[in-house]
């Protein structure tokens, strides 16, 4: 983490409480609406549909009536530099045209559509499948007039480029603008949250500066129930999950037999 004028830089991150998450999909809808994500006729083609935050349904694999489903909402993990080997996020280090970068001042991994040449190397590098390629041009047919709801905060993408969750970076810029208008340089915790955080009707998502002890996320990631996806790959995601359920936690990483440590005595 970079020191910036004597104080620790910001590191925006997200905590998602999986026990609270109900799999309703509001985060996905809010995200798509906020970020001008194109909707195509066939969104069931999950290999090609674009969902910056995606809900993965998981199951405990037991027989009826002991089956349980749960969900992993998966935004971009905004992986960090690795303290050990000095990796950049796996996608950043491979990008040929510097179209995706880690901003050391916010911890946010950017994706610049107008810079991207569409080689998809970053997609290959991302173990979370958080990166989406525009296989088609944005679908806003004139006769539908659907382009009328597009927000000017996020530029619609052309085909042939990668897009992904930006932690609603434009909301940070919006909050900063507001602060500047009020003569402040710094923004408050609540002024910058992502669209999914705001939309989640069960308040399962918390967003803030992981480095700032006053922010709620800072406290949440200390909990014993906090964990990250594929932690052992050492990509250092800035998205944390909370769950008390062992079967859910076990699905967060590839564990070898006997390796998984249970949190509770029950299943």
């Amino acid at each position, binding site marked *: 983490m970079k020191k910036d004028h004597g104080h620790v830089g910001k590191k925006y991150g997200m905590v998602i409480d999986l026990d609270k998450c109900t799999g309703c999909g509001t985060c996905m809808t809010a995200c798509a609406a906020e970020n001008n994500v194109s909707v195509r006729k066939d969104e069931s083609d999950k290999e090609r549909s674009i969902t910056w935050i995606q809900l993965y349904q998981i199951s405990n694999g037991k027989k009826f009536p002991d089956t349980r489903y749960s969900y992993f909402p998966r935004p971009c993990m905004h992986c960090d530099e690795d303290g050990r080997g000095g990796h950049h996020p796996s996608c950043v280090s491979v990008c040929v045209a510097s179209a995706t*970068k880690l901003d050391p001042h916010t911890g946010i991994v*950017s994706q*610049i559509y*107008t810079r991207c040449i569409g080689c998809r190397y970053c997609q290959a590098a991302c173990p979370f499948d958080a990166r989406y390629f525009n296989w088609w041009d944005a679908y806003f047919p004139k006769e539908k007039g659907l382009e009328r709801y597009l927000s*000017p905060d996020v*530029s619609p993408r052309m085909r042939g480029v990668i897009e992904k969750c930006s932690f609603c970076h434009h909301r940070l810029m919006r909050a900063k*603008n*507001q602060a*500047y208008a009020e003569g402040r340089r710094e923004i408050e915790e609540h002024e910058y949250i992502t669209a999914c955080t705001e939309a989640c009707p069960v308040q399962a998502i918390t967003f803030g500066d992981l480095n700032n002890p006053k922010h709620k996320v800072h406290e949440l990631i200390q909990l014993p129930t906090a964990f990250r996806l594929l932690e052992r790959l050492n990509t250092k995601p800035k998205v944390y999950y909370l769950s008390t359920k062992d079967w859910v936690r076990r699905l967060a990483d590839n564990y070898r037999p006997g390796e998984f440590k249970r949190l509770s005595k029950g299943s």
Partner: protein
Amino acid sequence: MEKPDEKLGEGFLSSLNDFVPPWLDLRSTLSTGFFLLAGFIAALVVGWILFPMILYSKQPQPINFNHAVHIDEESGIEGETETEKCLYCHEFREDGSFAGIPKIDKCIECHDDPESSIGETLEEKEFLQNYVAEEKEVSWFSYYRQPDCVYFSHIAHVNMGKQECFVCHGDHGKSEKIPVYQQNRLTGYSINIWGKRLSGWKTNTWDRMKMDDCAECHTKTGHEENNACFVCHK
């Protein structure tokens, strides 16, 4: 093949031959040189003159706007600094966003009576008649609109960075006549963003407003952190 002037040239050449070493084939060298040079010059003409002419479309603004009159010390908008005067019309909204070219409502704040003009120009009368009276928006062309992928926060530069307007906009604010709007047919960029000086040389900060120019200024003024991609891209 046998043209008279070529014969003439041949005579000239043969006379020249006396002055050059015998192993130099003057005739073929000169003719080669001639065609190479002809191609070379033709290319320069095409590249420097024809190409820009074709590349840019010209659209006159719907009506002239005299910036100079509006910020005139005596009769124009009041304000202590130039920036303040600019901001009178090109204002910030409450949320810190920049309103850009003012809407007709802003004009009507002063030009409230279509019947009586403030100045004496014909243009103003025309404006009052065609736009103020009908409360119709003027369809201005914006010289400085960045492409859609760019996020530019005026307030960060003007209020926080204390930048003067002319740094990016030059003396546009003092002009009496607004120039013809020139748009790149391929990119849709205004010539003011990139194209005024095709050579690429830049003498003024406002000659070009491409990414490198923004970054150059950020670096120079010690705001390198603002060269992070997402700061200006959306």
